[in-house]
């Protein structure tokens, strides 16, 4: 166990998995010099056969992953910003998410796609989307949302070893954040939510980048005498419905926090699941704290206004706890 940066945890997972299995390859635009930091040092260690810069052609990068996987590699594709997933979306939605079914189970696709999402750095609309709801809706790809350095390491290792296409969504701007990371071969299973904090008055379900402000909000609530439980689903596909339902039943008061745009967000989906399966236990309206249905403005003040922060979360959680 040691304190490490989120980026560093990813880097460690990549190094360990590449060392463990010679079939693991990594490619993407500028991965050699590590534009996002997370692939630093791989070139020196593994050489250009196993990690390489590609031309700018996302449509091919995603499709190529399918073919390389079919032919025996375990493929890690770095897409840099998650908005570029859209550029490579055809092969994701039409091939990667569907081929296992369409081939009657023949196609096996050990593919991990890394992409950084979210706002907060004035990168403007084309570099700030949290577009994972579209991925969640595809049905055939896993979606991992590590919120902490430990989960970043553990989920990435599970993704690379797994046999299903997985999106590993990096929380942008949290690359520098620190946290305890177990040493060595630490994996986190998919579909297991984590309880980040126990409490009996209100349940806050926080996705990915939203864990941190939600934990801050929980502290504020504590000061006001409200004990918030904080649950982190960790993966959206598969989704640990059981844990979420149990948590909902415990307090009957739910707030889901998500950096995605509100309509058809992961927050919507989780709220819907609970309004169905935990209905009898609900004591208050199920609330969503999300980005409004806008794309990210550039100006820092305008951007800040759109992204859920501890104050907004705390306010809505307080209302919910007291409703």
């Amino acid at each position, binding site marked *: 166990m040691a304190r490490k940066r989120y980026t560093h945890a990813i880097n460690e997972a990549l190094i360990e998995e590449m060392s463990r299995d010679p079939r693991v390859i990594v490619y993407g635009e500028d991965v050699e010099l590590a534009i996002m930091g997370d692939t630093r040092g791989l070139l020196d260690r593994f050489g250009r056969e196993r990690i390489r810069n590609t031309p700018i052609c996302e449509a*091919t990068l995603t499709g190529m992953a399918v073919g390389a996987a079919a032919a025996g590699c375990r493929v890690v594709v770095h897409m840099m910003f998650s908005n570029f997933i859209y550029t490579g979306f055809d092969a994701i939605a039409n091939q990667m998410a569907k081929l296992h079914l369409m081939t009657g189970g023949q196609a096996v696709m050990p593919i991990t796609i890394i992409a950084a999402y979210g706002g907060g750095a004035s990168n403007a609309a084309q570099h700030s989307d949290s577009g994972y709801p579209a991925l969640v809706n595809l049905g055939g790809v896993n979606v991992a949302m590590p919120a902490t350095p430990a989960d970043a390491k553990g989920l990435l290792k599970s993704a690379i070893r797994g046999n299903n296409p997985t999106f590993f969504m990096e929380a942008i701007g949290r690359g520098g954040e620190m946290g305890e990371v177990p040493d060595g071969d630490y994996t986190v299973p998919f579909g297991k939510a984590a309880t980040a904090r126990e409490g009996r008055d209100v349940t806050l379900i926080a996705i990915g980048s939203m864990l941190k402000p939600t934990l801050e909000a929980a502290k504020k609530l504590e000061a006001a005498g409200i004990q918030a439980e904080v649950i982190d689903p960790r993966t959206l596909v598969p989704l640990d419905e059981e844990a979420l339902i149990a948590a909902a039943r415990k307090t009957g008061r739910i707030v889901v926090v998500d950096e995605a745009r509100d309509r058809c967000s992961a927050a919507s989906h989780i709220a819907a699941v609970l309004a169905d399966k935990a209905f009898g236990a609900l004591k208050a309206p199920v609330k969503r704290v999300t980005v409004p249905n806008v794309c990210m403005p550039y100006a820092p003040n305008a951007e800040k206004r759109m992204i859920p922060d501890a104050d907004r979360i705390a306010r809505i959680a307080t209302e919910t706890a007291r409703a």
Partner: protein
Amino acid sequence: MPTTEPSRAELLALYERMLLIRRMEERLRADAAAGNLPGAVHLYIGQEAIATGVCAQLRATDLITSTHRGHGHFLAKGGDPKAMMAEIWAKRTGICRGMGGSMHVADFSKGILGANGIVGGGFAIATGAALASKLLHDTRVAVAFFGDGAANQGVFMECLNVSSLWKLPLLLVCEHNQFSEFTPSQDITSGDIADRARAFKIPTTVVDGNDVVAVWQAAGEAVGRARSGEGPCFIQAHTYRIQGHLEAEDLFLAGGKYREKHEIDAWRQRDPVERQQQRLLAAGVRPDDLQAIDARIGRVVEEAVKFAVESEPADSDLALELMFVGQKA
């Protein structure tokens, strides 16, 4: 490099494979017309020489990607007629267990990475397969079959670039059948498609796609080059789609017209199966021997249909199991 001439046995094998494709397609045409097949069926009639000539140069471990018009590639690469027929009949014994259908026949165990309903969907998959082959040092060659229409998709160029840069063992085979659905190719294609490959310094051959020997020869050179590490090759094979874009196209056209009957007739004169038959006869093969082949194939087709018809329908809950490996939907 001197062109290799096929042996008599090779000539016969090429003929037999083309005929298998032809007869399977004819049978599918009839069953489509009879309303026996769900979904859309795109037939390969008239183009058999291309899949056949190319795949005859491949090893079992080599990998191909195909198109919406994929039955020919499936059969040419050694796919099982029974399993294909059952798939198109939506049966649980189908090669994709009834989940894929005509547009998705695939047999990964034979290197058939699948027909594809997305025009241009195969380029990057084949490029990725070629990349894996190179990284795993296993000398497999990957082949992407695609239509003239698909060559207007941007991924085509992206894959030309990537494969040329990285000297991937990739063969790109453009089946130029003059049409993209109901649109004549020249209406939507600027310049010569082969020039696009040339712009990336990829060796390019243009062949008569209705001459299986010409295709076989071009493919032999290209596959050899790819396998020996010299990088990708491009083959443009000129041919013609004899059938409609899909069976029942008249329904879609509702009286609209996009080509003249005499054009189709003219191309019928260049039928690749008949041309190979003539070549064999000229080489002294006896008509009886050819008839024996035809009869044998007739039985294969009948058995395939029988197998399909008698098989159980697909498992209606299977999709819930098959979205993931070892994970429920």
